[in-house]
């Protein structure tokens, strides 16, 4: 058994999302469900989230009506499926600064947040370029940035420069510069605590949307296919994908694309009464399953 128990928790979804955004290239080849989710880790005295989801109070109506984002549930309800309350969360890794990944940062009053310094600096730079460059900024809510300012002032938001090992015990972060965003990072969990871990899980943020980014759609002739949305380059996305896969010894299922609907089929899972998937990636010592019983 590993040091951390890990779950992926759905909190909303786009039921009809174009495959061509999840996977660069296949135009007019259909749609998939795009779950919105975050990861919960428990172990070593920590309760950790990887991303927070968005703030429904401010965006929910628009997202639901205009973009088909449905079935939103807040962190209190979603985390309760694993016996956790928002106040229990001690650390949050922000993989990138899009509103749907960090919009709920003020829901975790006892957490310390980790983000890449480059994500902040390059984003601020992009803001200075003018409105015609707004693609580079993404959907930014000033309220999220103000929340981040407040957290930083209180020493609760830590900006990390590049790769860092053992940010928390057995948990490393890696900068994937100029990919989906300027300072996206992925999170590695060495679940046996060993430097050369044989039990590694990687949380890819939006560097991957689906396992098909690791293989392409032709399983007989696999290739890395980047996601269809980057402010950096497709090359950088591909090399980040290769790095992640190498770190888990080529075992695809250990690189977790948080938006992948098929996680529920690859790992033990259950549908909650609210219609949200709880996916159990692995159970640590002294932890009971949140899927069965």
């Amino acid at each position, binding site marked *: 058994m590993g040091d951390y128990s890990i779950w992926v928790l759905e909190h909303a979804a*786009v039921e*009809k*999302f*174009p495959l061509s*955004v999840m996977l660069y290239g296949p135009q007019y080849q259909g*749609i998939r469900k*795009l779950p919105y989710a975050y990861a919960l880790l428990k172990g070593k005295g920590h309760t950790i989230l990887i991303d927070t989801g968005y703030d429904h109070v*401010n*965006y*929910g*109506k*628009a*997202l639901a009506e*205009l*973009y*088909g*984002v449905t079935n939103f549930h807040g962190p209190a309800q979603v985390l309760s499926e694993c016996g956790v309350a928002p106040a229990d969360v001690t650390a949050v890794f922000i993989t990138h600064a*899009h*509103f*749907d990944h960090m919009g709920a940062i003020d829901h975790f009053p006892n957490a310390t947040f980790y983000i890449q*310094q480059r994500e*902040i*600096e390059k*984003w*601020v730079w992009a*803001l*200075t370029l003018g*409105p015609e460059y*707004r*693609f580079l*900024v*993404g*959907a*930014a*809510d*000033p*309220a999220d*940035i*103000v929340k*981040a*300012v*407040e957290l*930083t*002032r209180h020493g609760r*938001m830590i*900006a990390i420069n590049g790769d860092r090992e053992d940010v928390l015990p057995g948990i490393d972060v890696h900068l994937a510069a100029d990919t989906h965003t300027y300072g996206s990072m992925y999170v590695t969990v060495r679940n046996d605590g060993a430097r050369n871990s044989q039990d590694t899980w990687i949380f890819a943020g*939006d560097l991957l949307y689906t396992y098909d980014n690791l293989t392409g759609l032709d399983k007989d002739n696999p290739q890395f296919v980047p996601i*269809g*949305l980057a402010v950096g380059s497709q090359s950088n996305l591909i090399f980040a994908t290769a790095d992640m896969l190498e770190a888990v010894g080529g075992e695809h299922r250990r690189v977790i694309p948080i938006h992948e609907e098929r996680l529920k089929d690859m790992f033990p899972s259950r549908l909650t009464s609210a219609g949200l998937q709880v996916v159990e990636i692995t159970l640590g010592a002294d932890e009971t399953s949140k899927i069965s019983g």
Partner: protein
Amino acid sequence: MVCEEIGPVDDPTLHYIVCGKPLLTRLQQILTQTAGFALLVMTRGGRLPMLDVPLALATQELASTSEELHALPVPAAVRHHFYHTTQAVVSIGQAIDLLAVCMRCARDDPARAALTRRLRVATEHLRAASRLPGFGMVDLQQACCACHVETPPTLNP
């Protein structure tokens, strides 16, 4: 403060909405920039020469936006909106002034708390102002989840 959405719009109100929307969008952009600068100052600390020009431009942009805003005829139905918008201008201006102070001050200086407060007040005023039909707080058209929408709709979250 409770902000209610206005009812059916007459011509002067419509004129205010059409002319005021781009101004509110500009204010949101200036606030986002200012908050971003503040985040940079808080995470890095110390003097940041790279912000000199962007801060000067933000100040200039705020002044011209404020001037255009105050030149608008303000019908009774949107006075409340105008109030929030002008208060946002004031708060953003104060935040920009405080940024200059924070680049020279210690991490525990009260100016940092004051800066944060001004940013939050400006955010609250802009969020209240975004309740008017046709206005929105966030350009969700740039969001990942918006990629599948063929015609960008008008947003009013």
